[in-house]
């Protein structure tokens, strides 16, 4: 298998892998008694832990008709948190789409001492518990900051936390595609006099765009629902730095299930849209192969 042994394979990388798959004899199997029973158990389990809870969220949000849902998500406080959350998530996604592509490029095409260490450091936001990430950020950019930069209780603090947790997504989805790329075309372009930037824009960029998009979609979904890394540095100031996740949590603790479930439903819908988008990208990439 000529698959590049790169980090966490993004969905696009995975599609690329399917190219080399053997003709599949499997998958045509009909369910036997044993496998049918297994399927039954699996579906029952999934219904209990995913299906039923999600249905409960949606049903609660529509409890007294669509009107309650609409008024819950358009209350001044809900709107404030949604505006901040979507804005900061979009901003962080865009920054990390650009910088993440750059980092992936440097990791694949450049060679310098300490590169392996850089690889490890990039995975830290994935592996670090979110609350520890929050503590990590507040100790450097909080009241006891060694540089005197205090971002606690500011929207820039929220943005910084989202930048931190979404850093690896685009890097790890673009990296395998860059590694798999054939360099001949680029070299041909260069020998025909194309500048480095032109070669990048006309040859590399079209190839990696699906990977950038799918990494960005994952990053956006993650940023939108982020809670642990944000709460310490945001200080959760009402109407200023309160993100949607902490709004939901506050409402459920206040006993306002409808308000909590309504905003939760909104986040759920976005998550499903992101998954559909990823599925489409995966299919496109598979078809191109």
């Amino acid at each position: 298998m000529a698959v590049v042994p790169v980090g966490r394979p993004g969905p696009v990388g995975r599609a690329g892998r399917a190219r080399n798959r053997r003709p599949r004899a499997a998958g045509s199997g009909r369910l036997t008694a044993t496998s049918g029973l297994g399927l039954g158990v699996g579906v029952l389990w999934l219904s209990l832990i995913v299906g039923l809870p999600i249905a409960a969220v949606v049903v609660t949000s529509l409890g007294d008709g669509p009107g309650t849902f609409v008024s819950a998500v358009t209350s001044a406080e809900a709107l404030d948190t949604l505006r901040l959350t979507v804005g900061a998530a979009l901003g962080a996604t865009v920054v990390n789409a650009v910088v993440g592509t750059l980092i992936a490029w440097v990791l694949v095409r450049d060679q310098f001492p300490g590169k392996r260490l850089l690889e490890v450091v990039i995975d830290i936001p994935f592996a670090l518990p979110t609350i520890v990430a929050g503590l990590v950020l507040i100790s450097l950019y909080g009241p006891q900051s060694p540089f005197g930069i205090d971002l606690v209780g500011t929207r820039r603090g929220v943005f910084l936390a989202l930048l931190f947790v979404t850093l690896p997504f685009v890097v790890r989805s673009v990296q395998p595609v860059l590694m798999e790329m054939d360099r001949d075309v680029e070299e041909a372009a260069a020998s025909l006099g194309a500048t480095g930037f032109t070669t990048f824009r006309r040859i590399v960029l079209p190839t990696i765009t699906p990977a950038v998009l799918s990494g960005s979609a994952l990053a956006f979904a993650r940023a939108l629902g982020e809670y642990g890394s944000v709460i310490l540095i945001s200080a959760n100031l009402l109407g200023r730095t309160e993100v949607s996740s902490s709004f939901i949590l506050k409402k459920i603790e206040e006993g306002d299930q409808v308000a909590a479930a309504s905003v939760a439903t909104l986040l759920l819908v976005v998550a499903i849209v992101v998954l559909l988008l990823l599925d489409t990208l995966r299919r496109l990439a598979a078809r191109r192969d």
Partner: protein
Amino acid sequence: MTDVDTAAPGRSAQAAGSSGGARPGRSGRLGRRGRRPGPPRSAGSVAVRWVLRLLAVGYVLSLVALPVLTVARRTFGHGLQPVLDALANPDLQSAARLGVVVAGLSVLINTVFGVGIAVLLVRYRFPGRRLLDAVIDLPVSVSPVVVGIALILVYGRNSPIGGWLEAHGIQVIFATPALVLATVIVALPLVVREVVPVLEEAGIEQDQAAESLGASAWQRFVRITLPTIRWALAYGVVLSLARSLGEFGAVRVVSGSVAGQSQTPTLFVNDAYQEFGPVAEQSAFTAAFALMLVAVLFIVVIAWLRPKEKN
């Protein structure tokens, strides 16, 4: 440009190194690449290369590496003794025990379930298969807080199911079962997504051959399927373990976070930090530092497993 060519397969070189050159195919390919001549490089592109390199390294350093080092500095700022005192805190110790139990149980559940679902998804066709495939991915792209409140709405005291369970003496929310459930959900797809591609590539020829020779389903699973997927499974298990130990949002919602009872390590960090005062702060940083060490350990293990899984 030759040095660039050798640079490209950074991870491959690392992979080949760690597996002791057991894969001549790949390293052979890289060897050829390394000798391939490239067009000459101008001084301008050297400058661009340096700018890109500095940008990448600078961004990662200021965003990730520096803050991580600062936590280490804050943890050991007053020497080793305060750290040891903080580790002796009974609340921290019981949080650590609970964290291990919850993570262990949820990884066990997700491993059994994940392998089962992966086999079903790859080898069988049934109505609703694509829906099942999609539902598995949902928990990772939705907010952990949403996972938490979804559980409360179903298994909380005020819901029909939760009320019925409580009437029969089973408390789910604000107790260990909810912690396990929440953790299982947030790590749900990790094992499935690692195992599925390996099973797809392996095909079922060996399985069919074994079946024609009279091997039972269990024998085929243990002797053929399991050895095929073992590295992917190990990879998935490590990912799940890391995710399970570190889960905060979902657990925060369904746990009452009572010290010594329903407080996991991540909740301990949060509660200790919110408490203020030098002792509480030392506890928070000590626990956070320990979690950080575990996370880095996981990254190293994952980096070691990755090439094996892909092979």
